[in-house]
């Protein structure tokens, strides 16, 4: 496993849209090897200048460009901590602990049987699916993305997803793609998938997990339980599992196969 490390990263670019923002961070310190990063892993961001924010914020990795020494984070402003992070400007430093957590499981590179992968995301929660799709593409699979949002405006930027795979959209108000929830999209009826990955709001992931279980399709989800340390020391972010009781989402997750969890599905 790649060694975890703590370092300052420089903001190369910040792009804002509504209450979300994309950070392109570069690891400038040449003495620090650029980490091997797996899809589904996350970083812990130190928040400065906020009296009410004491702990780091766990943020999933949206994309990685090792040749540029860049990690991209796509973040929804949900409270004071993320609001402070959103105030950073190009050239500022952000202190990260990374890479953290397990990863989405990828098929073996030499497995040549055709496989169809569906990556279902809700809102900005879709963030880690871009890097997952990219890694699937690199080993020869073209993934399908099914992204849902309340309205057209709530998608951050769908172009990177279109570059990596096929893109299907749903919106609750019908302003883009198919009207309704991701689990109502017609592609679920017309195509047969071998594997589903999902990340987004918990009710959406539960609906996806229910669908996957009904269709007997293997499914992995990424959880975002409230965390303190992010490295398995404090035991605050636990999730109940079938075989191992309470486990830390930060180290045993954030990615779980739905069969591991005691969700009401």
């Amino acid at each position, binding site marked *: 496993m790649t060694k975890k490390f703590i370092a300052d990263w420089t903001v190369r670019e910040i792009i804002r849209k509504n209450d979300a923002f994309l950070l392109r961070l570069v690891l400038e310190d040449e003495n620090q090897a650029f980490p091997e990063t797996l899809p589904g892993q996350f970083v812990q961001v130190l928040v400065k200048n906020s009296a009410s924010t004491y702990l780091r914020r766990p943020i999933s990795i949206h994309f990685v460009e090792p040749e540029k020494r860049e990690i991209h984070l796509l973040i929804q402003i949900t409270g004071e901590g993320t609001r402070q992070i959103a105030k950073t400007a190009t050239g500022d430093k952000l202190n990260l602990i990374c890479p953290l957590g397990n990863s989405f499981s990828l098929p073996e590179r030499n497995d040549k049987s055709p496989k169809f992968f569906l990556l279902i995301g809700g809102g900005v929660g879709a963030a880690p699916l871009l890097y997952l799709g990219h890694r699937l593409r690199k080993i020869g699979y073209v993934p399908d993305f099914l992204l849902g949002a309340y309205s057209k405006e709530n998608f951050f930027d769908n172009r990177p997803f279109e570059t990596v795979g096929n893109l299907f959209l749903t919106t609750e108000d019908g302003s883009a793609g198919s009207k309704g929830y991701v689990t109502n999209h017609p592609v679920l009826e017309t195509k047969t998938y071998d594997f589903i990955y999902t990340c987004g709001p918990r009710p959406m992931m539960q609906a996806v997990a229910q669908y996957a279980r009904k269709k007997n399709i293997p499914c992995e989800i990424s959880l975002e339980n409230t965390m303190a*340390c992010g490295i398995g020391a404090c035991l605050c972010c636990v999730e109940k599992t079938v075989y191992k009781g309470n486990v830390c989402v930060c180290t045993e997750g954030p990615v779980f196969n739905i069969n591991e969890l005691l969700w009401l599905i």
Partner: protein
Amino acid sequence: MADLAVNIGTLNFKNPVLTASGTFGYGVEYSDFIDLSRLGGIFVKGTTLNAREGNDYPRMAETSSGMLNAVGLQNKGVQYFISNIYPEIKNIDTNIMVNVSGSTIEDYCVCAEQINELEKIPAIELNISCPNVKQGGMAFGTSAKAAAEVVAAVRRTYNKTLIVKLSPNVTDITEIARAVEAEGADAVSLINTLMGMAIDIERRRPVLSTVTGGLSGACIKPVALRMVWQTARAVKIPVIGMGGISSWQDAVEFILAGATAIEIGTANFIDPTVSMKVIDGIDEYLDRKNIDSVRKLIGSID
């Protein structure tokens, strides 16, 4: 380069910087970030006789300059520790100490007795101050009589260094400290977390599954410092100070207040390397003040 070594009873520590139980796992969680052998010591996760699943999620609520937790002593029990964890950590070149908790006096005794057999565990920290378990825990630490009983019983079965971790959720912490000193404790460590609470106003319900939890982090430092100062004046045994220590300056304050050693807890979550910075900072402070040993700093306020 000052002399940083301190003693608790007959046990020698290479420096006074220890890591607090429940914030440092079994040490190995931090091995990517720091050289564990540089620490004065590590208190590993609270261990009980039988495995405990802990409390339901949510177990944590962030506060201004701190956090509430209600983990509830999740651990796999002392036998699992002895068979699976101890072999992995016993050769770390520092004092590895086990925080022991229980629901009954007998639980504490049996657990301590089993750890007594472990060659590379030179001390236990008896946790009579956990606010997050229904039975035992803090109940033993909030009455001088109950605290004295459990310490007396463990003292009969445990013959290495016995440290007793005290609760701040009492009227007079010095009374409890004196009671456990009288029963043979080699040191007291304080403070454990302060009982607190948080409410989610949108959902109109408590944030923590257990309603109340233990407050830790920078916000509790002044309270902890005051209690360490009071206790150091009330007992003859060494005091290990903790509560919100986040920098070397904080650590020096606790030592000046009378602590022989200090524990770093919640600050490890924000900066996993903070303990190293505290060691270096104390060293540089002593050099700057021309003090040749940290022992001369203990309790040295006018």
